[in-house]
């Protein structure tokens, strides 16, 4: 008999309802809304009625192909070269606009590489999105290990028993409480090509030998510059998480290691690191999640430029969904982003599962 004694349906729901209703309305609902919109052609100010388009948006974003360009040949079958001796190839447009290849219609070149005499060209329906996707992954792949590793080193440094060590902990953590917008603005100054602090410092250190670089204006340095700044800003955050992990390791283990005569490295390798396994997974996952949400830095510092070298998924989602009022396009990117994040958290679950 299910008694009413310990079951408090009314009170339970009453207490939980405000919070749950808010979460449902402002997180769960928009989430399904995003999935729904990604299957339509909704635009904010469109005269045409919204239609269901199935997976068309995903095809638009994710479609890509590899085409091979063969060298142009003269009647004799000889490869045509220009004055500099470079091999001449047909123009890509000949393929993407040709009626012979309707499947490539509307695609643009993403990147190409040489393969013997031929050239392989990767063409994509949405090159900007592809760049955003690659940049986001690149960002995560670089930032996660570097930031996680640096944070661990800082945590080990801060975990020493030294007088005044908490002052240093306070300082290292300080950028975390400063808005990422403020931080991004300050670093625009640091990275400036003319008056930038970074250039000044590097010139000072190299006695003037260093040639000033426009860090954010050069496609090859813009993304690394943003990575460096992001690492700087949040490394204190992860240092604190590592510290919390370090403090869960029993001191008796260290004493035992000391009695066994373990070296510092051995102590780290056999006592500290095994005790940090779950923390390590957590740190990596949190950095990864933060990395995939990369937006403010881009918006404040580069707007995705120069030449799309700092486009990211969230920046594209916002720019399309809000800036260009292409609601369905922005939502589709959001759903793709969510799918990636979900996959990562499932991997985390699996890595930290109980054995």
């Amino acid at each position, binding site marked *: 008999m299910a008694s009413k004694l*310990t*079951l*408090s*349906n009314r*009170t*339970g*729901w009453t*207490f*939980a309802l*405000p919070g*749950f209703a*808010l*979460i449902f*309305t*402002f*997180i*769960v609902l*928009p*989430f399904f*809304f*995003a999935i729904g*919109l990604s299957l339509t052609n909704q635009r904010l100010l469109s005269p045409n009625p919204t239609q269901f388009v199935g997976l068309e948006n995903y095809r638009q974003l994710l479609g890509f192909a590899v085409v091979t360009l063969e060298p142009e040949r003269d009647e004799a079958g000889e490869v045509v070269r220009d004055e500099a001796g470079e091999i001449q190839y047909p123009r890509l447009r000949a393929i993407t606009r040709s009626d012979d290849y309707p499947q490539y219609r509307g695609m643009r070149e993403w990147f190409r590489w040489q393969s013997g005499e031929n050239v392989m060209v990767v063409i994509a329906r949405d090159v900007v999105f592809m760049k955003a996707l690659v940049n986001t992954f690149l960002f995560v792949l670089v930032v996660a290990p570097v930031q996680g590793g640096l944070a661990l080193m800082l945590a080990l*440094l801060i975990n020493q028993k*030294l007088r005044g060590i908490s002052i240093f*902990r*306070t300082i*290292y*953590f*300080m*950028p975390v409480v*400063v*808005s*990422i*917008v*403020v931080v991004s603005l*300050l670093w625009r*100054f640091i990275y*400036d090509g003319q*008056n930038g602090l970074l250039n*000044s410092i590097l010139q000072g250190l190299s006695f003037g030998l260093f040639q000033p670089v426009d860090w954010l204006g050069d496609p090859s340095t813009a993304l690394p510059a943003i990575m460096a700044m992001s690492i700087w800003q949040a490394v204190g955050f992860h240092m604190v*998480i590592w510290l*919390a992990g370090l403090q869960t390791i029993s001191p008796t283990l260290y004493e035992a290691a000391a009695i066994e005569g373990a070296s510092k490295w051995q102590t780290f390798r056999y006592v500290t690191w095994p005790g940090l396994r*779950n923390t390590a997974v*957590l740190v990596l*996952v*949190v950095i990864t*999640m933060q990395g995939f949400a990369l*937006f*403010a830095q881009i918006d404040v510092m580069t707007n995705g430029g120069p030449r799309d070298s700092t486009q990211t998924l*969230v920046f594209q*989602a*916002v720019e399309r*969904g*809000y800036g260009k009022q292409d609601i369905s396009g922005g939502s589709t990117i*959001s759903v793709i*982003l*969510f799918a990636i*994040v979900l996959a990562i*958290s499932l991997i*985390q679950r699996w890595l930290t599962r109980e054995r």
Partner: protein
Amino acid sequence: MAFDPDNYGLRLFVRYLVLCLIALIFIFPLVFMINSSFKPDNQLLADTSSLRAFLPVGDISLDNYFGAFRRAPVALFVLNSVLVTGATVLLSLLICSLAAFSFAFLRWKGRDVVLSIVIATLIIPFETIAIPLLLLVSKLPWIGLEGLQWGWLNTYRVQIIPWIADGLTIFLFVQYFKGLPGELIEAGRVEGASWWQVYYRIVMPLSGPVLATAAILKFLVMYNQYLWPLIVVQQENYRPIMVGLGYFFQLNVAWGEVMAYLTLITVPVLIFYLFLQRAFIASIASTGVKG
């Protein structure tokens, strides 16, 4: 190594040197910001080529601050941010702790399902739902003094209400509540307290640490809001500080004023942090305990 590794004093010195050099890396942009806020634009730009950038030297004045106030309704932005942040933090503490209380102590039909939904939202990044949420709030009804209205854009409520409840805050409360001695709650029940009385007479007074953690985390999120107000607030009257920055980046940028504005909005948080640094750090650490 060039030094005698057994020399205790030297080793200590090297340790502190390393710690200080790292500290410089973390602190120099902020030092630069504060010092620059007192310098006229031309000197500010010239100083970046030398160490003067980090020193309050030269033509020091508060002109940039006056300039900033003239250029933009700074006080209004600060007020808006304080209002939005304060309201959200307070409402969030109340509503999330109530929900968590229900999850932790009460038994009711559907509880486990509801709790799993709440926890599942932890992995939805806000950025992925910003656009649909924008569409949603632009159509929501509201009954105010002027009667029924549609659409929440350009209001305080659009900046507050969607941010009140979140999975992380509820999760932190649930974890904390489950760690409280169950006999205290049972004693309250035997003594005749209703669940509401157990909540506010027994559980809340014992929840200082988790309230501080939740408040600090929410504060950091709310005070630093950027993307959301950027897209839902077009009217100056409701703009918060981060969006207010846009005023300083029209045509030619007055860097001194930018620095003054940044200093103005950052330093109070830093002071707040320095006073409560233990609580701040503990709150971040406690988010790491999940999983």
